[in-house]
């Protein structure tokens, strides 16, 4: 509680807006969640009324009540869970492998100046590439099954982890390195006890972006060519003009993304516990 009073700009004496300020604002002022719910209710009711009065065509925008019943129907059908499982598997495997790969390569590039110099043009080129264009290529190579989607999720999610790991490791405070060297620390100790922990805030920021992108990768892969998965289901319903179903699947995908994101954010807060606190501290 007292920490919040400490968050003033030392110069202007105005409260400092922090990263995660939205979050703490929500906790403090209960107007946040209530206001958000009211906003959602207003939006849903407005759409419902617009479609009921045929101002909006229900082929273009379905009635929210239809979407809701489509959602209930979808969730009660057994085959839906097979598709949910496939997509979940693609996202999780893609995310875990992508993160591991991104971390390993990022660490290599962060540690070795030579590796950085050699691979820099490729890193830049890959950064500029809109990675969704790789989907057809991966379908060709790995087929219509789950493998091509996993590879797509890896390809799209490993990059932010790589970049942030590299940036974190190369941005370690040189004075802190000097301290470690004066204490006769080995290179391994400098890495494990200084460079790695001080890079963790950036690495986790990369992992969060990577997670969202893994979902994008898996769905794009399914759009381009698949036999199962939520993206495939979305595609099928869309062709059949089952618009309430399309929105129901979209809602499920959004929920999936939010759940995964909240989980990673929870892990982030546990692992990088000092980061939010550092923003709260005043002075040095």
């Amino acid at each position: 509680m007292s920490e919040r009073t400490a968050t003033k700009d030392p110069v202007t004496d105005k409260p400092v807006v922090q990263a995660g300020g939205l979050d703490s604002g929500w906790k403090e002022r209960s107007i946040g969640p209530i206001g958000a719910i009211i906003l959602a209710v207003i939006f849903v009711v407005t759409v419902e009324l617009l479609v009921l009065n045929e101002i909006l065509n229900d082929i273009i925008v379905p009635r929210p009540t239809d979407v809701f019943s489509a959602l209930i129907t979808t969730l009660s059908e057994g085959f839906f869970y097979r598709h949910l499982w496939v997509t979940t598997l693609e996202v999780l495997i893609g995310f875990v492998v992508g993160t591991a790969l991104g971390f390993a390569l990022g660490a290599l590039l962060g540690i070795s100046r030579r590796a950085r110099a050699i691979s820099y043009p490729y890193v830049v080129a890959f950064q500029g590439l809109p990675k969704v264009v790789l989907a057809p290529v991966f379908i060709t190579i790995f087929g219509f099954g789950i493998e091509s989607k996993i590879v797509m999720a890896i390809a799209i999610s490993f990059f932010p982890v790589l970049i942030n790991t590299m940036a974190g490791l190369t941005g370690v405070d040189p004075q802190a390195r000097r301290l470690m060297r004066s204490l006769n620390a080995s290179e391994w100790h400098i890495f494990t006890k200084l460079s790695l922990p001080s890079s963790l805030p950036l690495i986790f920021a990369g992992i969060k972006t990577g997670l969202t992108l893994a979902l994008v990768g898996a769905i794009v892969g399914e759009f381009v060519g698949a036999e199962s998965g939520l993206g495939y289901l979305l595609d099928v319903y869309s062709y059949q003009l089952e618009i309430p179903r399309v929105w129901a699947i979209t809602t499920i995908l959004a929920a999936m993304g939010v759940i995964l994101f909240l989980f990673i954010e929870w892990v982030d807060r546990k692992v990088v516990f000092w980061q939010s606190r550092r923003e709260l501290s005043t002075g040095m």
Partner: protein
Amino acid sequence: MTEPRPRTDVLPATGASIIETRGLSKVYQSASAPIEALADISIDVRPGEIVAFLGPSGCGKSTLLEILAGLISPTSGEVTIDGQPPRPRAEVGLMFQQALLFPWRTVLANVLLPAELREKTDRDWKARAHELIAMVGLEGWAEKYHWELSGGMQQRVALARVLLLDPEILLLDEPFGALDEMTRETLDLEMMRIASDAGKTVVLVTHNVYEAALMCDRIFVFTPRPGRIVGVVEIDEPQPRGLAFSTTTEFGERVAQVRGLLSGDSDE
């Protein structure tokens, strides 16, 4: 005032000095022209002595400290610490202007870092760390994190950390330079008491004439471009000293002498 004799002869076999440099120089290669950071530095520091490297920014005093700490090597000349070439080791402790506490470690874990890095298990380091934390006036703060500490308290933790391995020699690079004047003075006096009680040799890098005159037995006065020693001022007052020393005529005279050396060079 005694000029350092620019000796190039062999090192004395007696080893009366704990820190010795002879004709030391450091040249940095830059894009345009080489920069002479240090030129012809010959100093002797006796065991238990508290000395200052004093001078304006860019005079090479911190470079010399880094050479003594074994972090960088000189371009030419000789240097020995305790009769050996400098290298990072337990007998030499280095302290910086920033506390450099790791935010993911508690006060205790920060203080224990030097023992952890050396994988030393030969004694109860935890007990010693707690002792040192109490000695620097932070009893009860061992489990806190650095964001709960003021700047002065953070430097106290850094002081406890550098003392953990009980180094004979303390190399201090403007250790309290980032703190406010009152806090700096308090910590200076405490540090001096700790060092002289334990008979430690201290090298203090500073640009503060008063700090140097208050704390040190001898002041090596540096001037920049190239970084060289223009004179040495001895302060004949037993350690540990109190703030009262800063009101004596001896103190005033020595400060004036240092100022003379610093400005004398720029008049040339």
